[in-house]
């Protein structure tokens, strides 16, 4: 079956540094990926998405990179701020099955002041 997982469960960075959160997926048919941010006590919030025909997509302070060869994607956060502290999930559309996303376990990002 397909799975979406994360390499590191926790990540601690210094304020101002760049953060990189990784995610691996197993379904080679996956054609759409999303990163979500979940702050404590809240629901996940959409950050950025990328389709499989792209290698890179940039947003405001965030960049998602997709490597289809090794089925890996990453979320880069530039100049990490305390407000970035949260759990980050990658999610995979899994080949277009009714739009149901498959979520990974998440990486907890802690930003040290």
């Amino acid at each position: 079956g397909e799975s979406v997982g994360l390499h590191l469960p926790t990540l601690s960075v210094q304020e101002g540094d760049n953060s990189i959160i990784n995610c691996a997926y197993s379904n080679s048919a996956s054609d759409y990926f999303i990163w979500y941010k979940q702050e404590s006590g809240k629901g996940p919030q959409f950050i950025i998405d990328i389709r499989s025909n792209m290698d890179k997509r940039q947003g405001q302070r965030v960049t998602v990179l997709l490597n289809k060869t090794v089925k890996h994607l990453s979320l880069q956060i530039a100049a990490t701020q305390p407000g970035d502290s949260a759990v980050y999930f990658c999610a995979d559309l899994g080949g277009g099955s009714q739009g149901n996303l498959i979520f990974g376990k998440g990486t907890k990002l802690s930003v040290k002041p």
Partner: protein
Amino acid sequence: NAGVTQTPKFRILKIGQSMTLQCTQDMNHNYMYWYRQDPGMGLKLIYYSVGAGITDKGEVPNGYNVSRSTTEDFPLRLELAAPSQTSVYFCASSNQPTGGVNYGYTFGSGTRLTVV
């Protein structure tokens, strides 16, 4: 716009009791979903709906039921609560996938349920 609204925010149930978790959205989204999130884990799909009158099982549907009588509302029913159903429940909605951009879901703030 309120987005996706879930009630209640917290609930404690005794084993065998039943309850309904309410979810409503005001964005006219066709697709709605119920997920559960166990501590330190990702979200697992319980049920989803692609439109009013249509529902389908997700990954972990046992012990739950849903209905979708209107576009706005997607309640989740627990008939005989069990300790294994202790979790945080999230409702979400999205636009109908069109093959374009942004399949992103809008999530509610969650319901924290404890079964004792």
